[in-house]
Every structure is written in C-alpha cells, then in structure tokens.
C-alpha cells in the first residue's frame, strides 16, 4: 500500500473516532435538556449537532495545536497515529458498551502517549502539554462544580421571592435552549479540535503538511476543520442514549433552573479551556457542574455511587487506552 493510501485510511479512522466521540461524549450536551423535558431527544440531538458544527467560527484552534504537539512531531508516523487512534476507539467503544461516561479526549491523549512510548520511549511526550492536561483532568470538573454551585445559589436567591414556580420553570426552560447551545459550542470546539490535532500531526509525519502550522494553528487547512466538525455533529445526531440517562438523571435529578446553571457553568469552563489550548473532557466538566447543582440543593441529592463509577472511568481512561495503543503499535510493527 502506498503512503498516501495509508494516510487516507488513517484520516478516515480519525474521522470515525470523531464520530464515535460525538456519539459517546456529545450526548452530554443534551443530557440536561432531555432530563428536564425541555426538548424531545430527537430535537435535542439536532440542536446540539448544529451548535457542535458551527463552533469553529467562534473559538480559536489552540486545542488542535496542543494535541498535535503531545508527541514530538519528529517521530510521528502513520503507524503511530493509527495505534494511538485504535487505543482511543477501543476504549470509547468499551465504555459506551458498559454505559459508563468516560472521556474521549483523555482516551485519545492516552492512546497517543501509549503509541509514542512504544515507538521511542518516554522522552517523545511533550511534558508541558501532558502536565496541563493532567492538572485540568481534576480542575475542569471542579471549575464546573464551583461555577454551577455558585450560579445555582445566586439564581435561587434571586428568584426565591417569586411564588409562581411554574413561571420560574417556564423562563428557565427557555433559557436552557441557550445554555445547551453554549455548551454544544464549547464541546464542538474542544472535542473536534482534538481530531484536527491528530490529523495535522499525521499529515506532518507523512510530509504532507508543513510543521509551521504548529506555530500558527489558524492556518490549518479548512477541509480538516470542516470534516472534523461534521463528523462530531453527525456523531451527536446518532447520540449515546445510555450515557444521556446516566448524566441527566442518575447523577442527580435536575429542574430547568439547575439545568441552565449546570450547562452555563460547563460552557464557560469549556470556552476558557479552548481559549487556552487545554484539551479537557466535556464529560468531566458537565459531570462536575451537575454535581455542583445537586450539592447546592443538598449533598445527599447527588447519587455518589454513580459519581464514583464516573471517577473510576476517569482514572482508568489514560492508562487503559495507552495500553491498547502500545499493543496495537507492536502489532503494526510486526506486520510492517
């Protein structure tokens, strides 16, 4: 097989990963609007998919840049990117099958690190990007929690004198459309860019793209940007309903006001991360925000058993996907 054919195949796999990411993660965008019955599931997925797609118009491509640099561009090869992607895809499919919220982002980072380690050892991993990502594995849900808790307390205080609960609910049901849209924009920007970063790294490794693109991420070819956003939007439309159920109702039961606070808090966190080139997990972020709203009601409103399963999935994602990527890379080498 010629290198160009291999590049096309790996780009296609990257887009499948993006689609699976949409299928697996983007459901988080609609969990609260479905849980609070603001929109029917099919309406919610179309709403979220649209804002996933248009997000490239609003946020910079810093996350794509960070992902492209996670493994040194000097050693990137087609086999390495293939192995990294397979690690991430396997992990996503496994956690989706088990109905566990995981993180496609960290699965991808874990996969790339695993493949990089298998090829040339630990020195090829860009520590600063890894360090920033690792810190925000913990920080992103905490920021979501903090903002959602604060917003919920503030809004509750502002509306507590309004006796007609129905009026409050009606207002927040309308606002939830905006907060879900904002969250979908944040999600599309942060998650689609991870695949863009992988495709950029692959093309640089294959000599099809100039390394200079890493210094100026806005010069990334438009076909990469559009195809990644289209893939994640399509993934969202096919949705991961099992995960919607976990996020929207199993963690804590949400009213429209809580939904608005959770989604707005998560959206602000994702906008911040995207602006600063931090690949964060949308799942981590919305989970933290939903827990924040739940704990503002009362701590016992949060179903900690489900939250614990989520935390375990977080802990296992990077090592799990890295291990699969190492095995895949060795297999690739055997057949190479």
């Amino acid at each position, binding site marked *: 097989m010629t290198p160009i054919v291999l590049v096309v195949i790996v780009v296609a796999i990257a887009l499948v990963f993006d689609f699976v990411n949409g299928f697996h993660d983007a459901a988080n965008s609609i969990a609260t609007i479905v849980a609070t019955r603001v929109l029917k599931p099919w309406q919610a997925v179309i709403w979220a998919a649209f804002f996933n797609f248009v997000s490239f118009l609003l946020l910079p491509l810093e996350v794509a840049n960070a992902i492209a640099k996670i493994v040194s561009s000097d050693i990137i090869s087609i086999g390495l990117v293939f192995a990294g992607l397979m690690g991430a895809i396997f992990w996503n499919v496994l956690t989706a099958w088990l109905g566990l919220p995981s993180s496609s982002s960290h699965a991808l980072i874990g996969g790339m690190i695993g493949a990089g380690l298998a090829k040339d050892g630990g020195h090829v991993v860009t520590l*600063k990007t890894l360090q*920033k990502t690792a810190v925000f594995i913990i920080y992103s849900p*905490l*920021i979501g929690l*903090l903002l959602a808790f*604060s917003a919920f307390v503030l809004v509750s205080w502002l509306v507590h004198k309004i006796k007609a609960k129905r009026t409050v609910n009606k207002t927040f049901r309308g606002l939830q459309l905006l907060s879900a849209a904002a969250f979908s924009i944040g999600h599309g920007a942060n998650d689609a860019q991870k695949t863009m970063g992988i495709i950029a790294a692959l093309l640089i490794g294959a000599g099809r793209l100039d390394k200079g693109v890493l210094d100026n991420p806005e010069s990334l070819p438009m076909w990469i940007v559009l195809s990644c956003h289209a893939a994640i939007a399509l993934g969202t439309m096919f949705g991961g309903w099992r995960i919607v159920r976990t996020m929207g109702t199993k963690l804590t039961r949400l009213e429209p006001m809580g939904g608005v606070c959770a989604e707005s808090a998560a959206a602000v966190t994702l906008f911040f991360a995207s602006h600063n*080139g931090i690949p964060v997990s949308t799942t981590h972020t919305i989970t933290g925000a939903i827990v924040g709203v739940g*704990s503002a009601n*009362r701590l016992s409103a949060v179903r900690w058993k489900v939250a614990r399963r989520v935390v375990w999935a977080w802990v296992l994602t990077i090592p799990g996907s890295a291990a699969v990527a190492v095995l895949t890379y060795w297999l690739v080498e055997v057949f190479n």
Partner: protein
Amino acid sequence: MDRRAVFFVIAAVLSAALVPLIPHEKGKPDISWVGYTMVVAFVVLAVLSALDAWSRSRFH
C-alpha cells in the same frame, strides 16, 4: 462538621496541591490564577456552608 463544608475543604486542598503543577508555556498567558481563585472560592464556600449548617442547627 457539615458534610458539604468538608467536601469544599477537600476541593480547596486538591486545588491548592495542583497549583504548582500548572505549567507556564512561553508566549502563552499564565493561567495559575485559576488555581488560586479556586482555592479561595472553595475556602469561602466551605466557611459559608459551615455557617449555614450551624445556623440551621440552631433553629431545629
């Protein structure tokens, strides 16, 4: 002590422990203020939660 206050104290400690690990990349804005802000905010929330629990317990 109020469970929610304890939860916020743990979050504050975790946030503080991670502040030194936030890398500063050349040519990019320093984002360590995020960590400091979280520590302060979680401490404030812990104090407020504890006070809230204390005031509730006086009425019940």
